[in-house]
């Protein structure tokens, strides 16, 4: 029982990490409060449905969706979000989210879409007594690869260092010859693309409809806050930990499980706003 719950928690934790890392880039590092993140997740799931129905192979589906979502996000950032203050960005991403949701409602029918699993990913794998579907193993594999790749890229490469510098002190970074505008647009696009990949990987496991983004949006915010603003490693740890918490609560204390994430969110915001490994303290207002 315990092992079964832990495996399920690990699976959902890895898929959550993909989406939450995107938000960790946009919200944690760039400090753009991105209420459109759930919409990009939803977009990814719809791309999955559309491309799979047209018989495109799974790796191409993932790449294509990420690219499409990234381009949309890049354009949106360039045209709408660039150079705006915090409050305006909050208001604007709410609007972007509404626009994307309504656009999806217009392009695809306003009803749940059937997401098919390709034949070669159907079936189950058994570990002793525990049964896991092949597709979720595939999703976890992709998710883990992306998660580790992103962590290495942000924390240990030159590009990652430029991104960290541009988000921490834009003017100095620009003075040193880095095109911060392009870099931030790129970062926002990567964050949105990660959300879309999360949506692609989750599509066959959940119900695909235009409203599917709002739950994952809130959960991703919880992950970024708990992990600590601006910390990729923190977000990974928080995703895995929160998924386990959720899984074990659902298994052993089902009547309280739905509350647990929100209690964790409010508790962290009030008592430990820096999160687990936060670099930035969120600070107090006067008063």
């Amino acid at each position, binding site marked *: 029982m315990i092992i079964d719950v832990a495996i399920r928690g690990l699976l959902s934790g890895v898929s959550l990490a993909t989406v939450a890392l995107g938000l960790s880039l946009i919200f944690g590092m760039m400090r753009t409060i991105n209420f459109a993140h759930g919409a990009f997740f939803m977009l990814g799931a719809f791309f999955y449905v559309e491309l799979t129905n047209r018989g495109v192979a799974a790796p191409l589906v993932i790449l294509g969706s990420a690219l499409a979502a990234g381009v949309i996000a890049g354009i949106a950032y360039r045209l709408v979000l*660039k150079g705006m203050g*915090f409050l*305006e960005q909050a208001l604007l991403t*709410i609007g972007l989210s*509404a626009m994307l949701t309504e656009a999806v409602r217009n392009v695809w029918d306003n009803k749940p879409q059937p997401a098919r699993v390709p034949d070669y990913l159907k079936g189950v794998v058994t570990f002793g007594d525990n049964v896991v579907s092949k597709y979720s193993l595939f999703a976890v594999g992709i998710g883990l690869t992306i998660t580790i790749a992103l962590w290495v890229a942000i924390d240990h490469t030159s590009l990652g260092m430029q991104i960290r510098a541009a988000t921490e002190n834009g003017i100095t970074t620009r003075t040193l010859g880095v095109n911060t505008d392009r870099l931030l647009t790129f970062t926002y696009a990567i964050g949105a693309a990660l959300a879309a990949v999360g949506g692609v990987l989750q599509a066959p496991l959940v119900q695909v409809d235009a409203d599917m983004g709002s739950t994952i949006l809130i959960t991703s915010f919880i992950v970024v806050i708990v992990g600590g603003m601006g910390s990729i490693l923190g977000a990974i740890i928080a995703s895995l930990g929160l998924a386990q918490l959720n899984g074990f609560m659902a298994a052993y204390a089902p009547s309280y499980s739905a509350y647990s994430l929100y209690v964790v969110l409010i508790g962290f915001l009030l008592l430990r706003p820096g999160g687990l490994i936060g670099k*930035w303290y969120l*600070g*107090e207002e006067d*008063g």
Partner: protein
Amino acid sequence: MAKNSLSSKQSSSLGRLYSPLILAGMALAIFALWTGDYTLLSNALAWGLAAMAFDVCMGHAGVFSFGHSAMMAAGAYTAGLMVVHVTPNLEVALVSAMAVGALIGGLMALVTVRRSHLRQALITMGIAELLRVFIVDMSWTGSANGFAARPDSLFAGASGRSAFIYTLIVVGIAAAFLIWLYATSFGRVMHGVRDDSTRMAHLGFQPSLFRSTAFVISGGFTALAGALTVYHTRVVDFGLTNVHVSTQLIIMTVLGGLGYSVYGALSGAIGYVLLEDLFIGRTSQWPLLIAAAYVIIVRARIGGIAPALTRRGHSVWNLVRRRVSTNSPENEKDSTPTERTIP
């Protein structure tokens, strides 16, 4: 802000203060008689009240709330439960809904007003989600289905028309109260806290006190709006707990004009509901167009329809912008990195 100056307590200044409200109310009443669609208009008025109440927080006191769905839902559920279990009297239901809403507002204020906008948004969102989960969890709230409730008013009948007139009067009183509030010295200090809280603190006003009071008032009126929806629809709608309600209130208020007396929020919400009803049957792209219009209005810093029409758009939007950029060192971190200055 609108020039609602109460410098002299003459009747002419009172007339200037309230005449737009009275005119708007009369226009709505005539429109209602003309179309005969009372349910739609009652709904528009209830959303107008909710947006006005939300604007007390966001536009007038400078507290960023992303959880006003909590108060709206709490108002509707309190009213419904009072009607079903205690007394069918509508007035009792409305007053108890306001009390519960003010209580939730006070609770949110307690944990948010001293904190940054970012944490305000997320904490209020978390509280609203907790309430939603609680309502789903409990069987006596009808879980995720809501329930039917038929309130009876002491003063009005059960027809759609009397419900509309009743709603119009209640919303009118609430709007008049808020207009009065913004014109009092309390309201002025509240605006001061929004524009430059550090300065107000140095002048001897405690910003958190004014923000908390604004949050309590906002919570009470938002809950009243939720309770009014129960009166004209006769059901307690579970949909009011959804986070989309908070988003919609933001969109309505910003479309109309954030912090533009009560008229910005009121016209934004009423216009939103009426236009949606008018166009949704003709074009399925309507919600997309509204969302696009909203993004353009925020991006171009027009500051909303109402202030743009009265050519005060830029002054209103500048107030909002100044609040963002000058509040505290913390908010400097919140702005985009490219805008940051070297300390």
